[in-house]
């Protein structure tokens, strides 16, 4: 086990979108998971959406955080629609909106396809559909352009714009500076476990 993040000082205000860059292994994904309350920092302090991440307050904000990581989180034995409906049931969102949202992301005709039979790009779109449906206040994106065609890239930008319009915040981790640039208001570089932004 090694230290991944050592000296991180990051502030993101509502309405801001921060692009997080760094080499492979720099700790971008780890930082996103800490901010997303999935990992507890071993030292230091952090407040996200008003909650202290070192206390049980972090459980109260989870529903307001959306995260799309490297690996799709769909259940392969369920259809694309069933996966989205499941998310809606757990999150307390109206289940009836799932089919419409799936259509909004261009997967209306593939709603009944099993997730295990869908391409990686299609599964990513379902995850974007989930965030469209749940409308998080903090959106964390890890390599969002991976395996997306140009129309899906516009979808990502639309989702980011929606979060910012609601005075939410976005953090995008990526290697692809050029593609991320249109959707961020500023950038930060993670190097040597250290970040100041």
């Amino acid at each position, binding site marked *: 086990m090694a230290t991944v993040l050592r000296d991180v000082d990051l502030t993101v205000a509502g309405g801001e979108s921060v692009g997080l860059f760094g080499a492979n292994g720099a700790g971008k994904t780890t930082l996103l998971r800490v901010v997303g309350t999935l990992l507890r920092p071993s030292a230091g302090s952090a407040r996200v959406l008003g909650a202290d991440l070192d206390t049980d307050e972090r459980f109260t904000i989870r529903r307001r955080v959306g995260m799309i990581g490297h690996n799709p989180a769909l259940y392969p034995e369920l259809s694309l629609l069933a996966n989205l409906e499941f998310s809606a049931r757990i999150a307390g969102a109206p289940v009836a909106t799932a089919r419409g949202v799936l259509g909004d992301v261009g997967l209306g005709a593939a709603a009944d396809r099993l997730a295990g039979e869908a391409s990686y790009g299609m599964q990513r779109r379902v995850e974007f559909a989930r965030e469209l449906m749940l409308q998080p206040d903090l959106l964390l994106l890890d390599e969002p352009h991976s395996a997306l065609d140009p129309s899906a890239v516009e979808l990502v930008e639309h989702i980011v714009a929606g979060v910012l319009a609601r005075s939410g915040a976005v953090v995008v981790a990526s290697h692809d500076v050029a593609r991320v640039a249109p959707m961020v208001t500023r950038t930060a570089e993670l190097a040597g*476990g250290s970040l100041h932004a």
Partner: protein
Amino acid sequence: MTSRIRRRWLDVVAVVAIVAALVFALASPRVADQGDAARMLFIHVPTIWLAYVSFGVTFVASIAYLITRKLRWDLIAGASAEIGVVFTTVAIIGGMIWGKATWNVYWTWDARLTLTAVMLLVYLGYLALRRAIADPEARARRSAVLGILGLVQLIPVHFSVTWWRTLHQTNTFRPRDIQMDGPILAALLISVAAFTIVYAALLRHRYALAHLELEAHEASVAVEGPVAGDAVSAPTIGSGG
């Protein structure tokens, strides 16, 4: 030398106590019907008592960890469980030797022996779980849950096996059949006290060792050391033709 003795005072007391227990055990009168074989009582009973104490400490320390998130409680839980497994093994072997000498069989489906075997399996699982996880925090959390589940669930296991043996009683191994004269009872109590002091000494040492292991682990991920990303550099092939 004086400070070394001061640090090891508990070890000294434990050795003295064990020697005293041995003397009293050998000096106690022989038990009718079982003869010298019954002296296994002075090992078997204390070791099973300490097994229960050990796992009880693991249980309490596990709860303390989940409440406080202080790793020292996990270290205590793990150390106590290790010692408990040793005592349980000794108790089983002692019981088997006693059974062979008294009933000419190494194993009977006596409730207590069966329960002890089950308890050993439960905490072997606990130790196996701890061995399988390198990260101290991850190990602590999972072990704490198992440390609680193990003891809590052993209560119904105790009742079920005891009732079952009551139904199926055939060739029963009955330690309580031994007549407890005063000198034998005294020797037994001294054995129990001696083994308890040995447990405390072992726990102290094992906790200290676990603490050193934790410090070594924390030093390896210390602030001054490299971060994980330092191991990644630019590839040397495919750049600049």
